[in-house]
């Protein structure tokens, strides 16, 4: 039994009924071929990183399924290539770590990567807005801290330097 994962992007210009129908077609196709669907993930509307067929958004779907033989893969791949409603597709065979990862992800054990400030909520869409929002927070936060850090060495510096001179002189005297 092998586990595969097919991800595809449906054209966002279509109506929601058509989009659902498209995903249903492939879901039925998998079941008809004897595959056992483990999980279906509707990732929803996303901004594309680059335009495909002059479209800048797409609806992402991901099906994870188990199947005995790999004959189905070429069929589903060909069907998706011929289908005009589908912009991109990718079929992946999952190894044992991949299966484990997906299970953990569904159980909510895997958290999202959060980068300092700028990548908090931005997921492709609204990039300029997301960037501009955290920016002021960034500017505001460091200033008190920066002041403190800047101020501290100035005060501390003479205190630190003085003993060095003293120790040096004392050691010389001892000699």
């Amino acid at each position, binding site marked *: 039994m092998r586990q595969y994962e097919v991800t595809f992007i449906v054209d966002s210009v279509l109506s929601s009924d058509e989009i659902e129908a498209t995903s249903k077609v492939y879901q039925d196709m998998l079941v008809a071929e004897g595959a056992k669907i483990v999980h279906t993930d509707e*990732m929803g509307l996303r901004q594309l*990183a680059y335009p*495909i067929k002059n479209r800048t958004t797409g609806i992402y779907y991901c099906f994870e399924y188990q199947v005995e033989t790999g004959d189905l893969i070429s069929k589903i791949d060909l069907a998706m290539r011929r289908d005009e409603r589908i912009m991109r597709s990718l079929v*992946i065979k999952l190894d044992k770590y991949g299966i*484990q*990862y997906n299970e953990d992800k569904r159980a909510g054990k895997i958290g999202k990567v959060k980068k300092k400030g700028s990548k908090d909520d931005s997921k492709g869409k609204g990039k300029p807005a997301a960037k501009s929002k955290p920016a002021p927070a960034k500017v505001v936060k460091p200033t008190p801290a920066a002041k403190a850090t800047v101020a501290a060495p100035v005060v501390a510096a003479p205190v630190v330097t003085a003993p*060095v001179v003293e*120790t040096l002189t004392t050691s010389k005297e001892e000699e």
Partner: protein
Amino acid sequence: MASRDDIKFLSNPKIGNRKKKYCRFKKYGIKHIDYKDPDFLLQFINEQGKILPRRISGNSLKYQRKVAIAVKRCRHLAMLPFVTDLLK
């Protein structure tokens, strides 16, 4: 004779000491790299969207290969750009 801890240096003696790079996948036991998570993969590409070399990212060869594959899959699905500018 004063021990090293007692000596007060004029400048920080740790300046110039580089932190050793490590493979985060080995260190934290990450076995699978998800190609559907562009935010994570963003750590392994530069501003132009190029994959960072091992000497910069510190990945072991095994996981560098996996990262490269994941980034390429991600690009195919239009979650990461092939070429760009000012990505970060």
